[in-house]
C-alpha cells in the first residue's frame, strides 16, 4: 500500500520506536520566541543541561514588541521577557533575530522567508500556529513549554503518530475569493474540532494553484480546526519560492534537495483515515461573526437563528457568541459596522497579503471613525512593501503603517481593541477578549479587511468597482 506524505515524514524522523510508547522523533528545526520559552530555559539551567543543537534552533521576538516606537518598550514585563530571551540566547549560543535585526518578525513569517523552513523537515515552536510551515511539505506543529525544554535538551520529542486527514479542494476560486476565505469556509462547514488527533494534507486544484503565501494562510489555521499540523506536498511553486533564500543550499546541492522534496508527495494509492471534499465554487468571501473561527458566514449571509442549531450544545454556544458580540439572531453580515481594522498576523501579513489589501485601499479613504492599522509580518516584508510603495498607498488612504510583530492578533502589546468595538481582522482567532477585554473580532481576508476600512462596515469585495484588481 502507498504512503501519504505524512507517513513518509514520520518514518524518516523516527529515532526510537517501542511497543506501548509514543515514538521518539527527531526535530530538524526549533523556532523560539519570547513568551513560551523563559520557563524552558530556566528548567535547563536548574538541571545544568546544555542546548543540544543550537544550530538547529532559531529565536526571535514578536509577541509583545511595540509596533510604534519599537525601541522604547514601556511595558516593564514585556521588556523583561525580551531581555530574558536575549540573555538565554547568549548563554546557550542560539541565533536570535532581535528587535534591531533586519530579520526580526513574526516567527512563522521569518522561518519561510529566511529559508529556515524547508520541505521534509520536522519543525516545532512553542506556538500553535507552527502549522504554517506545513505549507512547505514539512511536519510542523505547536508545542507547550515542557516540550520546548525537551526539544532544547534532546532535539527530539515523544509523539504518538496522529491520524491522517485529506482535505481536497477542487475547482477554481471565484474572483475576490482568497486563501483566507477557503480556510474560513472549511472551518464554518466542519467546525472547530474536525481535525483533532489528525494531521491535515491539503490538496486539489485550488491548493495546487495557490502561491506559497496562500498555502501558508491555509495551513496556518489548521489548528483552528483542532489539527496540530496541516501541510501541502512540495511542488515547483515550493521550490521556486525557496530558491536563493538565505538558509537553503545553493547550486547543485539545491537541485538535489529539490528532487528529494518532490518525492515526498503522497503515493497515488495512499489511503487516509478521513477525507473531506470541497468545491471551490461554494466559497464566497467570508466573515466570522462569533467567538470561534467556525462561527463564520459568507459576507452575503447572516448570523444564525437559535432555532437553526443542531443541538443543545451548539445552541448555547451560538447564544453566548451572539450575546458577546452584541448581535441579534439573523442579523445580516453586511450590517455589521467596524471601528477597528487590523491587517497583519502570521495568517495574513506577507507581501502578497499587503498587496491585496493595498489594491483595495488605493485611491480610497478610510471611513471616518475607523482606525485601521497595517502591521507587516517582518522587517523584510516591511522593506519590500516600502520598496514598491505600498506604505504610501496605505498612508494616503488613512491607514497607519507600523513596524513588524504580532500586534493586534493577540494584543499583548499596546495595540488593543477597546471593549464593545468591532474589528475586521486578518488574524486567526476571534476568541472572547483575544484583541482586548470585550473586543469583538471578525476574521476576514486582507481584501475584505481593507474594504471594511474604507466603508466602515462589511462589503463584498466582489462588488467593488476595481474588483477585477483583486485576484
Amino acid at each position, binding site marked *: 500500500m502507498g504512503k501519504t506524505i505524512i507517513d513518509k515524514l514520520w518514518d524518516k524522523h523516527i529515532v526510537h520506536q517501542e511497543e506501548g510508547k509514543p515514538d*521518539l522523533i*527527531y526535530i530538524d528545526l526549533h523556532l523560539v520566541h519570547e513568551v513560551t520559552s523563559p520557563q524552558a530555559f530556566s528548567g535547563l539551567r536548574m538541571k545544568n543541561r546544555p542546548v543540544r543543537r543550537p544550530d538547529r534552533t532559531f529565536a526571535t521576538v514578536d509577541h509583545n514588541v511595540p509596533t510604534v516606537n519599537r525601541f522604547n518598550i514601556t511595558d516593564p514585563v514585556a521588556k523583561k521577557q525580551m531581555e530574558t530571551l536575549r540573555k538565554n540566547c547568549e548563554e546557550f549560543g542560539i541565533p536570535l533575530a532581535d528587535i534591531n535585526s533586519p530579520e526580526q518578525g513574526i516567527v512563522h513569517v521569518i522561518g519561510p522567508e529566511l529559508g529556515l523552513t524547508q520541505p521534509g523537515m520536522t519543525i516545532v515552536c512553542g506556538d500553535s500556529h507552527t502549522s504554517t510551515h506545513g505549507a512547505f511539505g514539512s511536519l510542523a506543529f505547536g508545542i*507547550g*513549554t515542557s516540550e520546548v525544554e525537551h526539544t532544547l535538551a534532546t532535539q527530539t520529542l515523544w509523539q504518538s503518530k496522529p491520524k491522517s486527514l485529506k482535505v481536497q479542494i477542487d475547482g477554481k476560486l471565484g474572483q475576490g475569493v482568497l486563501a483566507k476565505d477557503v480556510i474560513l469556509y472549511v472551518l464554518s462547514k466542519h467546525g472547530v474540532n474536525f481535525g483533532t488527533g489528525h494531521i491535515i494534507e491539503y490538496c486539489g486544484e485550488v491548493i495546487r494553484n495557490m502561491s506559497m503565501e496562500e498555502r501558508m494562510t491555509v495551513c496556518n489555521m489548521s489548528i483552528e480546526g*483542532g489539527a496540530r499540523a496541516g501541510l501541502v506536498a512540495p511542488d515547483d511553486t515550493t521550490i521556486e519560492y525557496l530558491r536563493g533564500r538565505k538558509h537553503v543550499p545553493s547550486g547543485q546541492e539545491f537541485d538535489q534537495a529539490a528532487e528529494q522534496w518532490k518525492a515526498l508527495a503522497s503515493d497515488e494509492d495512499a489511503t487516509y483515515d478521513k477525507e473531506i471534499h470541497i468545491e471551490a465554487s461554494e466559497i464566497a468571501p467570508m466573515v466570522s461573526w462569533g467567538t470561534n473561527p467556525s462561527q463564520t458566514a459568507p459576507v452575503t449571509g447572516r448570523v444564525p437563528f437559535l432555532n437553526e442549531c443542531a443541538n443543545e450544545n451548539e445552541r*448555547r454556544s451560538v447564544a453566548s457568541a451572539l450575546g458577546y458580540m452584541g448581535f441579534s439572531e439573523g442579523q445580516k453580515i453586511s450590517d455589521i459596522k467596524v471601528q477597528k481594522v487590523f491587517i497583519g498576523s502570521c495568517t495574513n501579513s506577507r507581501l502578497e497579503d499587503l498587496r491585496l489589501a493595498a489594491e483595495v485601499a488605493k485611491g480610497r479613504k478610510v471611513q471616518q471613525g475607523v482606525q485601521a492599522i497595517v502591521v507587516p509580518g517582518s522587517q523584510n516584508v516591511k522593506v519590500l512593501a516600502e520598496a514598491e510603495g505600498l506604505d504610501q498607498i496605505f498612508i494616503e488612504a488613512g491607514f497607519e503603517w507600523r513596524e513588524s510583530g504580532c500586534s493586534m492578533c493577540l494584543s499583548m502589546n499596546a495595540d488593543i481593541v477597546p471593549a464593545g468595538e468591532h474589528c475586521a481582522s486578518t488574524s486567526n482567532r476571534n476568541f472572547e477578549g*483575544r484583541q482586548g477585554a470585550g473586543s469583538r473580532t471578525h476574521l476576514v481576508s486582507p481584501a475584505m479587511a481593507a474594504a471594511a476600512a474604507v466603508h466602515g462596515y462589511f462589503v463584498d469585495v466582489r462588488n467593488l468597482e476595481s474588483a477585477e484588481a483583486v485576484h
Partner: protein
Amino acid sequence: MAGLTTFRGKAAGMDRVNVDTDQIIPKQFLKRTEKTGFGQYLFYDWRFQADGSPNPEFELNRQENAGATILVANENFGCGSSREHAPWALLDYGIQVVIAPSFADIFHQNCLKNGMLPVVLKAEEVEYLLEKAKSPSYELIVSLDDKTVSDAEGFKASFPISSYWQTMLMNGWDEIDLTMQMDEQIRKYEESIG
C-alpha cells in the same frame, strides 16, 4: 514531580463547550517568566468583574465549588493556543484532574507533561457528573492504577490512558531524564542525517 496514583477530591462543574486557552489564562498574564503564580489569573475575564471583584455568576466562584480540585468540563476543553500557562494556571489554582468528553490535543499533552490528569469520559457520564457536581460537597475518586473515576454513590467509569503516560504519571518521572538516557541513539540518528 510527585507520583499520582489515586486522587480524591471535590468536583466542580463547568458546563461550557470549546473553553479556549485564551479564557483559561488571558494573554495579558503570559508575561511572567516563571511557572508559578498563574492561579490568581485563571479564567480571569470570566471570574472577575470590571472593577476586580469576583463575578458571583462564575462557576468556580460559587460557594459549592470552593476548594474544588477536580474540574468537570465539556467538549473540546482547552482548544486554541499552545500556551502551557493554561495547565500551570489550573494546577496553581488547585485543579489536579480535568474530566471532559474531549480535549484539544496540545492542551491534553501539556496537562500530562505537568503531572495533571486529563480524563476523557463518555458524554453521558460527563453529563451525570456535571449534574452531580452541582451539590456542594460532591467528591470523586480518580484511580490511575485501575483507570477509573468513581463516587461514593456507586458511579464508576473507566477512562483510556496510554500505558506510557500511566507509568510516567504514577511514578512522577521526568521525560527529559528518560530521553537523555537515549543519547547514543539520538547521536546515531544525527550521524545518519549528516
